[in-house]
């Protein structure tokens, strides 16, 4: 036990005290750096994430122990940047490559599925778009092809929002023979003054050898303050 109580010079003590405080200071300053790291304030008062609640997505290497180097120059403590270690980067790179391969494979599988199930020469796709939508809130759409119901689709609020933002839904994908056909669509929802609103639209069209694309369009007719439903044949 005696060797533990060796005498130290005041200079030595001062250096070490500086080193230890430097380590703590480094951690304090570092933690404080995190919020603006993403260019935005940290999570708000409602945050429940541990990281968010702690107010910091603390960068790695948060706990730099006091080292002789620190003692020599307390403030020269290297800040613990979010810079990943080479190991982490290697794994991150490997994961990114893997993700890219999976995305590519997923694309190829999607292509195979569609080409196998809906060959281009018989394919018919019905899309749905909504423009503005002030006079009509879409709930559901029923589609009949040649008097046979092919789909009855109920919309979620998220899907309606996506349509209102400008998304176009591929509502139905199927196969049809070459020749004359008829598409009938019924739109259900809420019209002006929140009243239940059901309207239909129909189109007779000719299916040729190539794929056929049809678009159900819901527009606002400003003059009549009413929604308008039409089916467009994309040649």
């Amino acid at each position, binding site marked *: 036990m005696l060797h533990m109580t060796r005498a130290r010079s005041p200079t030595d003590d001062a250096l070490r005290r500086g080193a230890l405080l430097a380590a*703590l200071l480094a951690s304090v300053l570092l933690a404080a750096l995190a919020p603006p790291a*993403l260019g935005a304030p940290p999570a708000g008062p409602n945050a429940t994430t541990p990281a968010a609640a702690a107010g910091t997505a*603390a960068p790695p290497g948060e706990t730099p122990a006091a080292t002789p180097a620190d003692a020599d120059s307390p403030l020269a403590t290297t800040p613990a940047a979010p810079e990943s270690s080479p190991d982490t980067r290697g794994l991150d790179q490997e994961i990114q490559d893997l993700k890219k391969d999976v995305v590519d494979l997923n694309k190829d599988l999607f292509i195979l599925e569609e080409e196998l199930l809906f060959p281009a020469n018989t394919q018919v796709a019905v899309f749905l778009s909504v423009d503005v939508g002030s006079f009509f809130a879409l709930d559901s759409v029923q589609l009949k092809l040649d008097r046979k119901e092919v789909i009855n689709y109920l919309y979620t609020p998220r899907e309606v929002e996506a349509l209102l*933002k400008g*998304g176009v839904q591929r509502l139905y994908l199927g196969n049809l023979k070459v020749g004359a056909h008829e598409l009938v669509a019924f739109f259900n929802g809420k019209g002006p003054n929140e009243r239940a609103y059901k309207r239909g639209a129909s189109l007779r069209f000719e299916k040729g050898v190539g794929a056929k694309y049809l678009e159900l369009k819901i527009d606002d007719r400003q003059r009549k303050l009413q929604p308008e439903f039409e089916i467009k044949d994309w040649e």
Partner: protein
Amino acid sequence: MRLASMRALLLVAVLALPAGAASARQHDPEKLPITRIRDLHYGDALFYFYQNEDFAALTRLLAYEHWGRVPHHAEEAQLLEGGLYLALGMHNEAGERFERLLTDDVPTGVRNRAWFYLAQVWYARGYLERADAALRKVNGRMSPELEAQKELLFGNVLMHEGRYDEAIRLLASWRGPQIWSAYARFNLGVALVRNGRLNDADPFLSAVGTMLAANAELEALKDRANLALGFAYLQANQPARARAPLARVRLNGPYSNKALLGIGWADAALGDYQGALTPWMELRSRDVLDAAVQESYLAVPYAFGKLNANAQSAEYYESAVKSFDAENGQLDQAIARIEKGDLLERVLGTDLGARYGWFWQLKSLPDAPESRYLYAVLAGHDFQEGLKNYRDLVYLNGTLERWGDSMGAFQDMIETRERAYAERLPRADALLASGVVEKLQQRNVTLANELRTIETQRDMAALGTTAEREQWARVQRVEAALAAAPDTPEYADLRVRLALIKGVLQFRLHDAFNARLWQEHRGLKDLSLALHEAQSRWIRVERDRKSVPTNTGEFAARVTELKQRIDTLQARLGGTEQKQSVFLARLAAHQLEEQKDRLAAYEVQARFALASMYDRAASADTPKGSAGGNQAAPAEETPAPPEQAPAPPEQVPAPPEVAPVPKAAEPPR
């Protein structure tokens, strides 16, 4: 909230506003020009994108590009793909695409935004040099809001790179909206402290530390500024100046533990051990998991020792040893559970609604004994980023598994098609061999010629009804017979009657001829159309007859090849998942090990202090001739406080007048 808005901002940067709602909006120079949806399939990809279904949106976009279905939105589609790669955490791919796509043709504002968001992702992932390079690609000034954020981000990058002078220059000239100014001043203060300019830093950190905080976020920032300034003064041996900022830190905030510890140090450094005991005792009543609290377990007896209250000092040291022991045991259990290998499953299991992608954050922790420790572990940057990657891998594996199931169905479908093809083949071959369409076409030609002859010769009887044609034939037969008959009054009467009948018949045939001729022409036209249709079908049958074997064969080959790719990638995913899982478990265990080490160091310090006290008590007793007496319980009046702060031997030899300090300081939680 922040992540949601970031996502929205990221996406508008790379996205052309579609028709619809866009028409009512004003155009923003930092977005691509407003365009109408000209390819339905591009709109379909947007439909998924707007629902945050980034993976589905990207898959569809890539497939539609493959089929050439988005010719009018080619450039926007590519940019959107870049944004989606970024959102899915594939920042390298996104970076390469942006590098390629963000040419002069793209509006400057859009390019700037894309580089800015990419820089944010790279910064968060620790690719500082790339973040730096991306920020330097921002050309000119962006909108005030974005420009302010960009410069703050640049300041952070520079600070992390250790380039404080540059960071200070940048932040000193920073101008931006009020909401960001507290962050800018704070960062400037931190940069100045790091650059050794504490006096210059004080006004900035003090300003943030005394500002009127409008929300919890700014309250936290305020605390951090005060904490940073207080510790900077402590380090600069100016405890008197450290006290004020540390005292401003809220007692119930996330930084209060560190602040209490710091105030205690400041008091101790000023020789006010009685005063130091107040914050340290408060700290000691808090959760021992926190490093500052652990340190207070040593600080309190140290202060008592300084106040010559050696009995209390010894009592607190013993209590510290017990607490450290207990905590150590719990840490061992937590590490053992983590090393069992199901940490991630349990962590992700509580977040069932989890989605993939870079913007995801863990919402809750499993209800398990080690969860208490996981808050600290999971707050770690590396762990968070690694967890996102792990979760993405699990999601992708699930996707491939579903595809794997579908492949069986595809295989069946192709086999069924092949069987159906084999059954129909003889019929198709027999039909094709009959040359029936050609024969029909020849007949059609013959009929057309006949009609032409009838029309030319105005053979009206040829178009008559069956009865008319029979009547006409009879008339002609009777006429021929009468021609050879003698010229008698009976025959003359017969000839008159025949002429009358013939005239009536001729009139009828003539009257109906044009209409019948038109009907025949129409019939022939319909026949030609039907034959043309039959001809087309014939050609398709012939083509399908030739192509079906190749087609099904090609599909079969594709299914086989894709199945192999699924298997290979699933194996790779499994391996990488495992690696990532091990990495994260090691990371978590490592952090807990560090806590153990710290506890061990504290425990050694406590034991050492205790031993020293007993030593001194024994030495003090010896001259009085009471050696071998009461050594185990140093009396309150034992003189001479310990000459040195407790410290583990050869490890943290703290100077005599310095309060015990942690082996490794933790950031304020």
